[in-house]
């Protein structure tokens, strides 16, 4: 029974982590797919979102309201970043984009340190989302994490409807597969770019806000998630939202479940000292091995977006 509890708990944690990773990756993969722009500073937007929400939360005292108010602010921050800096880099090669957005990370992380200080901020879980709920008799799970799963699924659904069923989504898909043709048809692609970028920033920010109460809100908090998102995008296929959804869940599950159970599993198969030595290392390497395997057998990723 204990084991089942643990497995279910870790699986749900993995799904929750994967969904948050999806929110983050969705914007990144769109920007890459449509604008062919490598934005390493996407993690800084996630961080900014979390800081905005934490600050507003401390003013208004309600987490949902804080998130609702912080979303447009993060959208605007994304638009400003796109307008001031990134716009000049669409026509540049990937190396230039990597270098420029690396500079942007240094700037934004340090800016956060200046404005909010280096010490982590804590966001309290609101009362109505705290505590644990009984899923099936005998097995409980934190309410807040369940709420994150619901939020992630809801946003994924809305995103699917937006991209698959609306005119805007059609333009986004068309832009991803053949930018020149969309431009030739008279669509203001620059405006579309700016909008998509701000939207992606808001999604990344939402992920940062949502996990704020679980982790701590601090400068450079986005760096780690950026690397994971790049793994997600490579596995899922550049420019594919569906791909990053599947890949994000895969990465979330493999990473969480791997870290929880692989060391224990190794102990049963290897001598204890060896297992203790390689277990944790192998567990944190799993997703990178997964990525290497995908690249070997499907270099375009699992769900490659059609490229023009």
């Amino acid at each position, binding site marked *: 029974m204990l084991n089942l509890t643990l497995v279910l708990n870790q699986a749900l944690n993995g799904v929750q982590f994967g969904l948050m990773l999806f929110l983050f990756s969705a914007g990144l993969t769109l920007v*890459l797919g449509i604008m062919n722009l*490598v934005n390493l500073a996407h993690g800084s937007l996630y961080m900014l979102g979390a800081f905005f929400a934490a600050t507003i939360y401390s003013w208004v005292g309600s987490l949902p309201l804080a998130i609702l108010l912080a979303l447009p602010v993060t959208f605007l921050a994304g638009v400003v970043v796109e307008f001031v800096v990134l716009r000049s880099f669409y026509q540049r090669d990937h*190396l230039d984009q990597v270098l420029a957005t690396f500079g942007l990370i240094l700037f*934004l992380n340090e800016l956060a340190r*200046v404005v909010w200080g280096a010490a982590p901020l804590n966001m309290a879980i609101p009362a109505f989302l705290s505590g644990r709920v009984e899923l099936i008799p005998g097995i409980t799970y934190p309410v807040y994490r369940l709420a994150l799963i619901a939020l992630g699924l809801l946003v994924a659904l809305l995103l699917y409807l937006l991209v698959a069923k609306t005119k805007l989504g059609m333009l986004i898909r068309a832009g991803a597969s053949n930018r020149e043709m969309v431009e030739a048809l008279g669509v203001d692609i620059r405006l579309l770019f700016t909008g998509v970028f701000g939207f992606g920033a808001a999604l990344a920010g939402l992920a940062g806000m949502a996990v704020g109460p679980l982790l701590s809100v601090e400068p450079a908090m986005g760096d780690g998630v950026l*690397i994971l998102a790049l793994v997600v995008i490579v596995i899922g296929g550049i420019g594919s939202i569906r791909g990053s959804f599947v890949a994000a869940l895969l990465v979330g599950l493999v990473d969480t479940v791997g870290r929880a159970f692989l060391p224990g599993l190794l102990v049963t198969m290897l001598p204890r000292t060896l297992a203790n*030595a390689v277990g944790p*290392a192998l567990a944190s390497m799993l997703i990178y091995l997964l*990525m290497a395997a995908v690249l070997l057998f499907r270099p375009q990723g699992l769900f490659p977006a059609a490229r023009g």
Partner: protein
Amino acid sequence: MKALTSEAVLRTIVMAALAIVPVAALAVHQPFYIEMMTRVMIYAIAALSLNLIVGFGGMVSFGHAAFLGLGAYVVGLAMVNGLTDGFAQFGLVIVICAAFALIVGALSLRTGGLPFIMITLAFAQLLYFVGVALRQYGGDDGFTFRGRSIFPGLDLKDGVTFFYFVWVLLALCLALMYRIVGSRFGTALRGIRSNERRIRALGLPSYRYKLAAFVIAGTMCGIAGGLLANFAQFVSPAYIHWSVSGDLLVMVLIGGFSSVFGPVVGAIVYRLLEEILSGYTEHWQIILGPILILIVLFARKGLMDIFARRPASVPGVGHG
């Protein structure tokens, strides 16, 4: 050829200026500068090696710190396990880093462009987590050791001796790099960067050429890592952190991607920039970030461009 000559002049001046650093630093009783420039020269070797693949080969690696860290771990682990002979240590560094570069290169060069950037980054992360997981060696915090590699007739524990040891290695790496870039192999490599399809049509095995360049660069960076471990008498996963890979790219950017000597200038200027800016404010990165963006925007050819105003003798790195 004029451009090459002015690069040669600059190279001579910079290397000579570096050579008198210990003398000057001791004269003004500021031995701190000897250490500072030792570290700069070690990073210069790493940046130099990175430029072979990024600048000359057109392969944008965002995981070069992996080799820096691997070299450092090999020397550090040898030290704490009783192997102190320098030739044995650096022999191990060369073999292990070359082997790792061969595996990473063979896998990542199947891709190109963006996936290449990400997969090199991922391999570096992989190594980073191996370092973190080495709990018996401090995990996250790394480990320290006492002493430096033992080479017959050299006392590397002496700061000035170690400085000149690194200086000589930097000079050797530079000489090797000029030989490589000037050779037929180097010409083919630059050809691959400009138009890989054409090189293949000429019947050259472009994949093997790129892989060879990747292995050379990785091994040279591993040597820099071995020096770094010696210098700091400390090894930690921080050497493999992805921001170190970014720092190395930035050094090459500042110096210029299209010259052999550029990364050395870049490493020096980057450190000086850090020194000067941090004198003004502890939040110096808030100034450094925009400076980097402006360099990419307006001075993409780097500082070496000033010394090569005429059309570059070595075809410049374009944006295409």
